[in-house]
């Protein structure tokens, strides 16, 4: 390290950079000041394991990038005010002409009709949000079922769960901003949920709305929280999420040459960069197509929020569905005693239940260790879900519960669609909510055990079983031999080359590598 402290002339630096021209020069200049060469190369050589399921988190990351870009665009046109204006008589959408609406609503329809690209950006923003939350959930499921949350990655699991909660919260806040009839009703329901919190509920509601619902401040407050506060926290936590990933390195599935002590896959530069960059554009592209062709939240059809108006057959964004479902099917239990009311029919479904769900999610690494036979060892190799039947069964039952509640959020639509009474749908959903998770657990557990008996190879090709009858009359399934041409050839993993040498100079290169001095940990290549 001491050698680089000597000042160099530009020419000397150029000579030191050798055959790599301007890039070599820039590296030399930067390295003299910041010492980037060794760490920089280690970073470029960083290995990312290849598996399709590892890209789910990337979808979340890239949809967040889309949210930031389209969101900044939207802030340039949105007016977060509940002050009233009249829709001009030359407004392109005729039914709204002359209506008195809030500036929040006016600016949203204005950017949808009069700002070029505005509607596309709005729809892309909304779709990106739905994709963001969705990809987080699916990514989380992948991490859960493969056991990637185990020691040493519990912290990152916590960070990830927090990100999910923030994403859902910010989705709701953003959805509330246009001040349209549907979102206004959503805010009203949120207010009632706040009121249902024992002891502090009415204070909570009054502090959020600055007095009685709806008041004049809620859109402005939600706006600042939506565009500044929560995105900043999300950005910080995404940074922490990725930093922990780099520090602890990615997990990998077991396979040829893969151990707890190594990582096998593609190097960061250029293979991973190329693939992930392509994936970024693909995510952008899909969102753009959705924004172009799939209408979402056409608020001009709903109209301005008027507290005494209401629409019919309206559901919240998908990630709020499970809460809405439980609110619908929960019994009307409200208790009243000593001059106080506990609206348990709201407190449980909308406050306690999500609290339980997210607490179980956050505490899962500990719960598994305590109650589901988990250990306290360091794990870098992933589980196949079938090999950990208890965890897999619990996860399936958990998701089945949430999925059933999600379906329950459309009781009225289901009743209409199937021409059955609302009462039938209600009781069906009540029974299913309890029965489906209870059935899902043992069924999944059994399926896991059965699958364990099947093929154990982690190769990409499936192999059929030969069923053979033994002399004792027992039937035994054994894996058929690999058919010609079906074998999955995986090469031995090699370290990322520092220098790519032609075969002729390879022996010289090996000699060079051997001269590196490792005695004090700092390697100095003698050239």
């Amino acid at each position, binding site marked *: 390290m001491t050698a680089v402290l000597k000042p160099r002339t530009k020419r000397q630096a150029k000579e030191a950079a050798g055959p790599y021209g301007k890039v070599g020069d820039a590296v030399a200049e930067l390295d003299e000041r910041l010492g980037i060469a060794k760490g920089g190369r280690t*970073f470029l050589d960083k*290995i990312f394991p290849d598996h399709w399921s590892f890209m789910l988190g990337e979808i979340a990351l890239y949809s967040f990038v889309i949210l930031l870009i389209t969101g900044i665009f939207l802030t340039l046109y949105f007016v977060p005010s509940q002050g009233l204006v009249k829709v001009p008589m030359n407004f392109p959408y005729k039914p709204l002409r002359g209506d008195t609406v809030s500036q929040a609503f006016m600016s949203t329809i204005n950017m949808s009709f009069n700002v070029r*690209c505005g509607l596309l950006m709005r729809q892309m923003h909304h779709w990106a949000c739905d994709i963001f939350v969705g990809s987080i959930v699916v990514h989380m499921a992948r991490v859960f079922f493969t056991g990637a949350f185990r020691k*040493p990655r519990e912290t990152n699991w916590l960070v990830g769960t927090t990100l999910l909660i923030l994403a859902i919260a910010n989705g709701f806040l953003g959805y509330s901003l246009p001040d349209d009839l549907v979102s206004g009703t959503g805010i009203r*329901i949120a*207010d*009632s949920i706040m*009121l*249902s*919190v024992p002891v502090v*509920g*009415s204070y909570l509601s*009054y*502090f*959020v709305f600055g007095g*009685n*619902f709806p*008041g004049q401040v809620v859109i402005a407050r939600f706006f600042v929280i939506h565009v500044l506060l929560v995105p900043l926290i999300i950005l910080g936590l995404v940074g922490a999420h990725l930093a922990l990933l780099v520090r602890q*390195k990615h997990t990998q599935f077991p396979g040829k*040459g893969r151990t*707890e002590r*190594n990582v096998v896959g593609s190097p960061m530069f*250029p*293979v991973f*960069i190329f*693939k992930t960059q392509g994936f970024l*554009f*693909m*995510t952008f*592209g899909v969102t*753009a*197509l959705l924004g*172009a*062709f799939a209408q979402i939240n056409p608020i001009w059809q709903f109209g301005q929020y008027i507290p*005494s*108006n*209401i629409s*019919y*057959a309206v559901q919240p964004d998908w990630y709020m569905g499970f809460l809405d479902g439980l*609110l*619908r099917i*929960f019994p009307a*239990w*409200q208790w009243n005693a000593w001059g106080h*009311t*506990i*609206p348990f029919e*709201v407190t449980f479904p909308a406050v306690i239940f999500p609290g339980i769900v997210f607490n179980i999610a956050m505490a899962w690494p500990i719960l598994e260790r305590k109650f589901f036979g988990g250990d306290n060892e360091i794990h870098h190799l992933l589980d196949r879900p079938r090999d950990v039947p208890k965890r897999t069964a619990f996860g399936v039952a958990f998701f089945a519960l949430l999925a059933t509640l999600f379906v329950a959020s459309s009781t009225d639509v289901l009743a209409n669609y199937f021409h059955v009474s*609302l009462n039938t749908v209600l009781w069906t959903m009540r029974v299913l909510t309890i029965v489906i998770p209870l059935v899902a657990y043992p069924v999944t557990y059994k399926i896991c055990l059965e699958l364990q008996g099947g093929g154990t190879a982690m190769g990409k090709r499936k192999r059929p079983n030969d069923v053979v009858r033994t002399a004792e009359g027992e039937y035994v399934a054994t894996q058929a031999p690999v058919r010609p041409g079906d074998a999955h050839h995986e*090469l031995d993993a*090699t370290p*990322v*080359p*520092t*220098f*790519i*040498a032609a075969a002729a100079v*390879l022996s010289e290169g090996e000699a060079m*590598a051997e001269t590196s001095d490792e005695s004090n*940990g700092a390697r100095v290549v003698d050239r």
Partner: protein
Amino acid sequence: MSENVNDHGAADITTVSADAPQMQPLAKNPKGVEKAISALLLIGIAAFVGFGVCYWQNAAYWTYGALLGLGLLAMGAAFIAWGKYLLPRGPFVEERHVLASTETERSAFAAALMERGAGEIKRRKVLGTLLGGSLGVFSIVALFPLVRSLGPLPGDKLAVTDWKKGQRLVDINGNPVNITDMAVGGVLTVYPHGLENTDDGQAIDQTILIRVQNEPFTTMKGRESWTPSGYVAYSKLCTHLGCPVGLYEQQLELLVCPCHQSMFNVRNGALPQFGPAPRPLPQLPLAVDSEGFLIAAGGYNQPVGPGYWERP
């Protein structure tokens, strides 16, 4: 691997022959893949140009949205194909470094924390207590501006509405309702006169007026005179989550909340018939003034809307 690697994880200098199988592309026919990628990139360029033109010409939003999406997908596919088929196929490997430090390092760190920090506070008990006290007081008073400034205290305001005895019922345009205005089966949302366009009038006082029949009827004991000429009025705020109970099922004489399908029977005091609503809708006593317009014969006798802690 050596154990004393630094944070960056120092990598060894390695050299691999360009002929090594791992350094070859996955594609059996790289020239063909190159052609496919060029085609994708050309599609991308064409789509982006199309996006620009459509934007410039102010075409329908879905045209440039579609071209933007197409261009991005083509570019993304080109990148992925390049990375997957033309770059060295690998696999490559790197060592995982043990993150944990040695036992000595750990005790040295713990010792530094305890002996220099916590130990110091323990030694000077009075100072330590005062320090804790000042931090505690600071955190409490910091909440005053951060929380208390956000809004007024609710007091008993959640329990009251603006309805008073003798107040006329008006529709959203401020028109009073004459006893002859509505047919049997008709519904109308009404507000206290003068408050039809205010936040509170809209959000809290909103009341649904229904003409159930032509003659007065009794919804509940003690409410015999509340339904002149068969008109009945209930708070429009659902007792479940405060949505406006905006649907009237005329045949069954049920008020239905579209949010979570609570149903209230208008003949027997809006008792919940179905759904998650726990309480009946409060009923507004009605009367008729000298000019034949409907008025409130009093305010609501209980808080309207969803339940909350202070609700008696």
